[in-house]
């Protein structure tokens, strides 16, 4: 039997007539028309004032604002991540006081708008004119004027960081819970302490689940920093607003700022892809391809098809 099949060899590959898909062509035509209309608008509508946008795109105060936006994003995410890990571990504690405190933190900071929180920190001096360290209900050893402790940069960092901590803790908690229980058991059986197990075994595996939403949060934070303009603190939007209150070119400046935000978030997206790829190690048999590898594969497929 088997020798028969090998003698006959492999039958010729199927060359069927492909199914016609007229719906696709109609959709393509629709998209093309809308694209042409938009392009027409961008090019012919003078109110976009592209030359005005070009004039300010690399203006010193815009670049200064971008720098501030970037470090504010990084600092707020760093605070958020550090807080998030701590709160998540507290939340998973078997001690009800500890996990309750973590729950309360998340409840407050996730349950109120971040803009309100920012304004709260910016005006904290109105609530507590001085802040001191001492015994509760007893004497105070050190007293500071709140205004000196919480300048607008501090208010911006507190507002963004504490709020992010609440979201981050839920992301980290989900990541920790996603790791198989057997992992902790195996580490414990080998004599690792709880902290070593968390740091060496559980968190690295949790990262796979944590990184995608973390990237999401970072991109979201990049844009949320624009709320800091109302603290007020001089980030990108604040500086752009300063420009258009002088020039009255509101729309061109807002579009220019949006293009900058879009550019920065695109770069973050690429970064996220590579970080995800790093933490996929061991979880998938083959790492997902880099964009360059993907492009090369598509190209070789195309040329292969042409040859066939």
């Amino acid at each position, binding site marked *: 039997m088997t020798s028969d099949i090998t003698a006959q060899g492999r039958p010729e590959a199927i060359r069927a007539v492909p199914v016609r898909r007229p719906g696709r062509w109609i959709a393509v035509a629709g998209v093309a028309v809308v694209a042409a209309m938009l392009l027409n608008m961008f090019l012919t509508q003078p109110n976009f004032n592209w030359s005005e946008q070009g004039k300010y795109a690399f203006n010193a105060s815009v670049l200064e604002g971008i720098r501030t936006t970037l470090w504010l994003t990084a600092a707020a995410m760093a605070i958020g991540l550090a807080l998030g890990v701590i709160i998540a571990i507290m939340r998973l504690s078997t001690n009800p006081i500890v996990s309750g405190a973590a729950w309360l933190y998340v409840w407050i900071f996730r349950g109120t708008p971040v803009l309100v929180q920012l304004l709260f920190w910016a005006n904290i001096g109105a609530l507590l004119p001085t802040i001191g360290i001492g015994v509760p209900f007893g004497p105070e050893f050190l007293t500071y004027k709140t205004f000196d402790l919480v300048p607008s940069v501090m208010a911006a960092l507190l507002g963004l960081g504490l709020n992010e901590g609440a979201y981050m803790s839920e992301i980290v908690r989900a990541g920790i819970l996603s790791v198989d229980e057997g992992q902790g058991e195996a580490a414990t*059986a080998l004599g690792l302490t709880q902290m070593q197990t968390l740091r060496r075994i559980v968190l690295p595996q949790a990262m796979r689940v944590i990184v995608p939403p973390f990237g999401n949060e970072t991109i979201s934070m990049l844009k949320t920093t624009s709320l800091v303009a109302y603290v007020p603190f001089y980030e990108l939007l604040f500086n752009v607003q300063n420009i258009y209150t002088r020039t009255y070119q509101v729309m061109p400046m807002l579009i220019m700022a949006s293009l900058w935000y879009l550019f920065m978030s695109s770069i973050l997206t690429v970064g996220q892809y590579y970080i995800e790829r790093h933490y996929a190690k061991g979880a998938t048999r083959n790492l997902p391809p880099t964009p360059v590898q993907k492009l090369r594969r598509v190209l070789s497929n195309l040329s292969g098809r042409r040859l066939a």
Partner: protein
Amino acid sequence: MTATPMVKAELVHKWFGRLEVLQGIDLEVAPKEVFVIVGPSGSGKSTFLRCINHLEKVDAGRLSVDGQLVGYHERGGKLHEMREKDVAEQRRSIGMVFQRFNLFPHMTVIENVMEAPITVRGEAKAVVRDRALKLLDRVGLSDKRENYPAQLSGGQQQRVAIARALAMQPKLMLFDEPTSALDPELVGEVLDVMRQLADEGMTMIVVTHEMGFAREVGDALVFMDGGVVVEAGDPRDVLTNPQHARTKAFLSKVL
């Protein structure tokens, strides 16, 4: 018996809420002995194994490893719970192999084997690497050392797990149904490694359904059911000529 038993259990009880999983286990495991535990699922055999390295806390009775009480200090006739650090210290001399392997998927094979000696005991990397390579060679997987666990078959993963446990140079090895999650044709390679380990004089406690292995390699065997030891003795005697009705019923199903 003159030598200190490797494991000594006296009336060990364990309960989860109202469910009493262990109802007074009494047994002794001598050094260099291969001690086999068989029994139906839910009989408490895995729980007992996990009590030995304090993954589960003993609720009543006494359990000691190499003359040392597990998880408790005894001072002035009173038991004190051990601090986490001391429990971890005790576990270092007890290796454990799990039914589901539980290799660390984010580390390569050799990193899995090297992890505990470096992190837990702070040994020099070069020394540990040397030992890890020898162990991987012993389980026949030195060519897979740079692979990730997901790239290995179940049998290969379990052999790495054995090497990982041996890297801590334990005086006692616990096997919790090490072949139950494997395809039938992969069981043999794991049992071979275990047999070799037994020949080298390792003290082993093996929870298993592999009666052939129990008969051939085991020095002692207990049959557990409902949280108690129903029957104990030489594996060849118990397996071929069970005295108790429950043992007979169980063996008739698995043999």
